[in-house]
C-alpha cells in the first residue's frame, strides 16, 4: 500500500461562501481563498505602514489657514 502524504491538503475544507464549481472543485476554492488572503495581506502591509509626519503637518496647516481666513472675528 502506498501511503502517500497528501501534499498539504489534509482535510481540505471549502470555505463557506466562496463561489466556484458547485461540488467537485475544492482545489479551485482553496485557490480562491488563498488568493483572497494574499490580496488582503499585500494590501494590509501598506495600510500598516507608519503614516509619515508630512500628512499630519498638512492637516495642521489646513486648520491654521482656515482660522486665519475663514473665521469671522469681532
Amino acid at each position, binding site marked *: 500500500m502506498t501511503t502517500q502524504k497528501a501534499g498539504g491538503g489534509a482535510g481540505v475544507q471549502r470555505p463557506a461562501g466562496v463561489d466556484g464549481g458547485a461540488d467537485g472543485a475544492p482545489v479551485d476554492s482553496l485557490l*480562491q481563498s488563498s488568493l483572497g488572503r494574499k490580496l488582503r495581506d499585500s494590501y494590509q*502591509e501598506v495600510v500598516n505602514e507608519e*503614516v509619515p509626519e*508630512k*500628512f499630519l503637518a*498638512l492637516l495642521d496647516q489646513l486648520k491654521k489657514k482656515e482660522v486665519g481666513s475663514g473665521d469671522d472675528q469681532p
Partner: protein
Amino acid sequence: MSTPRAEFEKMLVATIPHLRAFARSFTNDGARADDLVQETLVKAWNSMHSFTPGTNFRAWLFTILRNAYFSQHRKLRREVDDPHDVHTNSLAVRPEQYGHLDLIDFRAALGNLPPDQREALLLVGAEGFSYEEAAEICGCAVGTIKSRVNRARTRLSEVLDVAGASDYGTEPLMTGGSKARGAS
C-alpha cells in the same frame, strides 16, 4: 447639518493609511502616491461641508482620490508620456521572482491586471466595500463591478496557478504580460 470639524479631522487622519494603500494601486511610485493622498486631503478639507454625515466616509474620500488621480492623469498625458505610468503598466515580472516570495508573485500578477479590474478587486476584496459602494466610487454600474471582480479573480488564479505549478517544474514559465497569442 455637517460633521463637527474635530470629528471630521479625526476621521480623516484615521483614513490616511487606507488612502495611501489605494493610491499605491494607481502608481508604483510611492512619492507620487503620497502626493495624490495629500491632494485628496486638501480637497476633502475644502469640501468638508459636502460630506453627508452617516454616509460612508471612506468611500467619499476614495472617490475624491480617484477623481484627483484621473484629472491629474489626463493632464500629464497631454503634456508628456509619464514615465511613472509606463513603469506601472509594465510592472516588471522578473522570472527569478517566480516561486520565491509568494507576495511578490502575487503583486506582480496584480500589477499586470487591467487597471479597472485591479481597482474593483482591491475595493471589494481588500477594502471590503460592498459591490454597491465600489460601483459608486468608480461611477459605474454594480454589474460592471461584479464582472470586473470576477474577471480579475479568474485571471489571477490562472496566472498564480501556472506560477505555482512551475515550482514543481511541470509547467513552463509563463512570461508576464506577453501579448503573443497562438492562432487558436
